[in-house]
């Protein structure tokens, strides 16, 4: 799922300090799981903002809410009255949710309340790790199920580089070398011969390099009535 962390409170206060009626909008999706933008975090942020405004002697009205997913129009629609009643919205959904909320309520000022980082897993309580870089062309079948794009610091397709040492990446002793992991896994699977054949340059068009991406799945799209009569 998408991993985010709360922005420093000082930064959020700085965004909203000149507004009176503020809506803190959380999301029950990914950001709830990583405890950055769910109901609990919305309540904490709302409370903190009220404390700030009160001690600063400013009139204010801070309300908190969440929706099932801020990346869906149908759920964002539920916010209509609350958004209209607010001068500014702090969205603590991921960057997608924040933008979609902005798109939907275009005349409202919307601030981000979290920093969105990556797609990852919950390794342990409070530990989130990146696993997929969303390159749009999965190579896991040939790399033992470990992604070199997301887990090698140099996105190499022909690793490990000369900086791999004792299973760690050259950038830090806390970072496992992705290619070391791939090697161990391929060795287990008896596929070490994969290391003898060069892997050709990757087509990055399916990654962010091709510009903002859109997926159109005709099989999933709304069925439009055909022109003409089916009975003719």
């Amino acid at each position: 799922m998408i991993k985010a962390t709360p922005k420093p409170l000082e930064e959020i206060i700085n965004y909203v300090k000149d507004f009176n009626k503020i809506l803190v909008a959380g999301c029950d999706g990914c950001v709830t799981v990583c405890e950055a933008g769910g109901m609990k975090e919305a309540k904490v942020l709302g409370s903190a903002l009220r404390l700030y405004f009160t001690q600063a002697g400013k009139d204010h009205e801070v309300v908190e809410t969440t929706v099932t997913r801020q990346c869906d129009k149908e759920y964002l629609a539920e916010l209509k009255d609350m958004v209209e009643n607010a001068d500014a919205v702090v969205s603590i959904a991921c960057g997608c949710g924040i933008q979609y909320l902005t798109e939907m309520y275009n005349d409202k000022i919307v601030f981000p309340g979290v920093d969105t980082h990556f797609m990852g897993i919950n390794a342990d309580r409070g530990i989130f790790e990146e696993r997929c870089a969303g390159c749009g062309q999965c190579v896991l079948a040939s790399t033992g199920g470990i992604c070199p794009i997301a887990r090698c610091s140099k996105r190499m397709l022909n690793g490990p580089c000369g900086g791999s040492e004792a299973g760690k990446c050259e950038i830090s002793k806390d970072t496992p070398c992705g290619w070391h992991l791939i090697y161990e896994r391929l060795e287990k699977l008896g596929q070490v011969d994969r290391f003898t054949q060069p892997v050709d340059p990757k087509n990055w068009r399916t990654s962010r390099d091709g510009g903002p991406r859109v997926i159109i799945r005709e099989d999933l799209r709304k069925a439009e009535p055909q022109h003409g009569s089916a009975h003719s």
Partner: protein
Amino acid sequence: MRLQYPTDIHIIKVPCTGRVDLFHLLQAFEQGADGVFVAGCLEGDCHYMHGNLYARKRVERAKEILAATGIGRDRVEMYNLSAGQGTRWAEICREFDERIRNLGPSPIRFAHEKKAA
């Protein structure tokens, strides 16, 4: 043991300090508390394993938030003591009461009273 401790401390009992959420601490300040302390079991003695350790982390986070909002980080604190340490309890209460008196009323209570006036 008829131990004396300040009478204006309002006690909220919870089964374990692990139940105390960050939100509860902030809410107390919103409602006008001048200070809040969490009294957990001794570290290593939690009946629920780590409840008091989680409470400490939340108190630390609350300090950061109170600092950022202008309330002040010293208005919240975590203490650890056992059920058998009545003397220590009274001592903590007096100590914390004195700390808060030195800090003066919370700016929130001040703002509330000003509004009401």
